[in-house]
């Protein structure tokens, strides 16, 4: 439980769209199952006064918070408007925004994440599946049937690959404390380091699986940060180099964003790197 528990009350921004409505229902079914509050209000500008699966919808975050005491928002607002919605949440005192939305323009994400930081608001994502603390709280779209409560934290840049790894862990009898999808976009709020900081303070978490991808150097930064036992897996070893970003970006990343050199650097730090997802349970068990 690093982003909340059963007692966490949630609002959903972008509540009336297909995705928003669908996942309000799933989040609340899970909340019911574990005895939590779940989603207490929805927000869609211009759609105030409706109800979605019994959840009241408001025109703005401000109006929703006048009626409901919540500090966590899950965001399904479409790409072009999502940056604005993150800032709206931060401005109104929301402390955690989980931004599920894909295809947010990078400049919008950059501005929104910077602004949220000024307001003391943490952002998970964008372009992420959210987070799940099995038996406690689901924020986002992760399937719940693959996971069981336990001591292993999972952090990942991708969605379905996370489910794959969680599925492998569960099949091997290893439960999870909190699973966090931090998102695959170039600009994200919570990084590996931010999540690991929370895992370090979390008495439930004894080891962490860190699932990375090609590009950037966030995995190395994260892995070298913590004393918790870590097993990593990096996807994209076979990714073609010509699909990388332009020259200047590669310089900023130290010239080495590709998976092979990333894996070399992780191994140099003494971190265990799995070659494939199915190896992870065996490697994590060694650390416990």
């Amino acid at each position, binding site marked *: 439980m690093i982003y909340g528990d059963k007692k966490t009350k949630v609002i959903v921004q972008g509540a009336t769209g297909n995705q928003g409505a669908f996942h309000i229902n799933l989040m609340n079914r899970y909340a019911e199952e574990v005895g939590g509050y779940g989603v207490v209000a929805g927000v869609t500008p211009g759609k105030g006064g409706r109800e979605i699966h019994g959840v009241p919808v408001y025109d703005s975050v401000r109006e929703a918070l006048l009626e409901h005491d919540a500090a966590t928002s899950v965001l399904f607002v479409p790409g072009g408007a999502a940056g604005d919605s993150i800032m709206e949440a931060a401005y109104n005192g929301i402390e955690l925004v989980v931004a599920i939305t894909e295809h947010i323009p990078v400049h919008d994400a950059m501005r929104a994440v910077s602004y949220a930081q000024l307001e003391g608001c943490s952002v998970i994502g964008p372009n992420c599946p959210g987070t799940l603390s099995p038996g406690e709280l689901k924020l986002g779209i992760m399937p719940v049937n693959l996971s069981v409560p336990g001591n292993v934290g999972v952090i990942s840049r991708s*969605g379905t690959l996370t489910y794959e790894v969680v599925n492998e862990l569960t099949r091997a009898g290893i439960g999870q404390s909190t699973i966090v999808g931090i998102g695959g976009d170039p600009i994200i709020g919570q990084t590996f380091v931010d999540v690991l900081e929370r895992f370090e303070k979390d008495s439930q978490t004894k080891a962490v699986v860190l699932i990375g991808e090609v590009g950037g150097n966030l995995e190395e930064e994260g892995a070298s940060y913590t004393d918790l036992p870590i097993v990593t897996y990096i996807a994209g070893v076979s990714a073609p180099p010509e699909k990388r970003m332009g020259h*200047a970006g590669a*310089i900023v990343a130290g010239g080495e964003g590709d998976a092979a050199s990333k894996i070399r650097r992780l191994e140099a730090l003494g971190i265990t790197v799995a070659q494939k997802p199915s190896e992870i349970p065996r490697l994590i068990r060694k650390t416990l």
Partner: protein
Amino acid sequence: MKLLEFEAKDIFRKFGIPVGKGFVITSPDEIDKHPDGLGDEVVLKAQVDVGGRGKAGGVIITDSKYARENAALLFSRKIKGISVEKVLVEEKLAIENEYYVSITLDRAKKMPVILFSATGGVDIEETAKNSPDALQRVWITPLMHDIPSFMMRRLLKGVPKELGPVINSLYRVYCESDALLAEINPLVTTNKGVYAADAKLIVDDNALFRQGIEVNRDLTDRERRAEKFGFSYVELEGSIGVIGNGAGLTMSTLDLISLYGGRAANFLDVGGGAGEDRVCNAVRLVSEMPGVKIIIVNLLGGITRCDEVAKGIVKAGISQKVAVRLAGTNESEGREILKKHGYMMLDTMDEVVLYAVSEASL
């Protein structure tokens, strides 16, 4: 999407960044339609999107009298394999000094970084490697509208401060054009002032809609069709087609193929909640790629309905084999449908990839 030099320069002009006088032609004859001279010498620049264009023969400096012949020569060339369809004809600048400036994204710091070097016109990766001290960099919060003076002084230590306004304008271009990269290499000083002698802009694909760009040129026809279907799709050169959901899982499937000694033909991420039609479109699209012997469908997720996926695979009815791994709702129904139509369904990623690699090597 990468803009061509002349497109980037059109944008530069709007933001007050000086660029050389010039015009674009699509055939050598068009040179004569522009009687107003650009001076005794002109520069002919192939408008192709490749790095190291000059070294690859994509730039010709010529006496204006021979511009037409040289343009014909340039149009006949292939620059790193790419045909020349447009040529930018520009005045030749009387260059005194060359500099390098670019603005890009620092993912770790989550803000733009401005890079400046007093040695321009060369490969910036070389500069970074051989003389890292020559490369100045400052980070600017995206909430700022202009580059603060102290940052500019830091960048421009020991070089003419006239470069400052151009660099600030480049930052405005970077922000307003939703750029992932804005680069001037070289940025030059002349006796008439500062000019952007070259221009590079990469626009965020997620922001094309508000930059007035309707067609993403960086994609092949099949990639563009894939984009219309809502797939992320990249073509590779192997014989094993790959369809997955989620970029990470799909990438990981590609990695496993290569770990087991096979070669993937493509990367296709169908996205979340794929139903019968999406799966059918994806399978058909991949099967059309030349050289594909077998297709792996690896879908996983709480909301993916396996019976829908199975129907999509059957509906596609392609001639190649399909190896399927599904996990999600209605798994057993999906398995039944596939079995009835003679398709393989396997339980794990390892199994499905091993099977496909051995089939593809037959």
